[in-house]
């Protein structure tokens, strides 16, 4: 019995080490983003802090990776979400977008945050400070809508 357990543990350990070798590309961290939304717009402090703590890990080049996010198999899921997040909306490239694209994103943001679709549940589960209460959701949505209306 003891032997079976030991062998299983060894196999699992070897498997765990082996999957670490499987190459996946890590979405790059870029420190200087001259086209960034926050740099290029006048944004109220409360909204700035929501953007930074609840959005920027997946929707900018300034991703802060927690230690566990670099270990397989977690990293496969985390990297995939970040790649998809940046593709859908990357605030580091804000100034390069057309007004139409900015508008479309801002209205989407307002709706998705209001509905609780963003930030994603799996992200909130691991980043409790990213969770938005109903007041923050309203503030954020109103800000995004009015910025889009003014474009």
């Amino acid at each position: 019995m003891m032997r079976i357990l030991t062998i299983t543990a060894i196999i699992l350990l070897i498997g765990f080490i082996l999957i670490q070798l499987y190459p996946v590309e890590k979405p790059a961290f870029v420190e200087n983003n001259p086209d960034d939304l926050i740099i290029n717009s006048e944004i109220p402090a409360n909204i700035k802090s929501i953007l930074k703590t609840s959005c920027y890990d997946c929707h900018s080049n300034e991703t802060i990776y927690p230690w566990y996010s670099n270990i397989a198999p977690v990293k496969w899921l985390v990297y995939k979400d970040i790649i998809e997040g940046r593709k859908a909306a990357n605030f580091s490239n804000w100034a390069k977008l057309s007004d139409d694209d900015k508008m479309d994103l801002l209205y989407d943001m307002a709706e998705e945050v209001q509905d609780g679709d963003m930030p994603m549940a799996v992200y909130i589960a691991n980043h409790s400070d990213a969770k938005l209460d109903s007041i923050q959701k309203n503030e954020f949505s109103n800000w995004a809508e009015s910025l889009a209306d003014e474009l």
Partner: protein
Amino acid sequence: MKTLKSIQVVIAAVVVSIFFMSNQKYSETIITKISDSDSTTFTIPANIQTIIDKSCVMCHTTESKNFKGKTKLNFDKMINGSYSINKIASKLRKIDKVVMIKKNMPTKKFLKNYPDKAISDTDRKTLSEWALNENKKIKATQE
């Protein structure tokens, strides 16, 4: 016996409300003045209304039970002045995107439940061309 009767009442109510929901119509051409400052109008001609009534209104009006659907696009708000000009323009672009480019509207789930509300390829094209054209009209007034 009493429970049976109340179940019958509930079923009747559901059937009646489904009947009314599916018959909801914008009966006339809608021309909405979208800004007080200029004479920009946003028009839904009769042929477009027919398509919208058939394949879109069940989720995209204020009375809809589909919360997500009506948050994303609410035709009532689009025509009654609740949406800003930019929001109308953005929603028109979205209509083209989901109806013509991605073709993910109406959703598969919706069409499974209401196969009679399917949208033909011709209607997709008509709807999308209308949306892009209205969008262009709005942009022209903003320049």
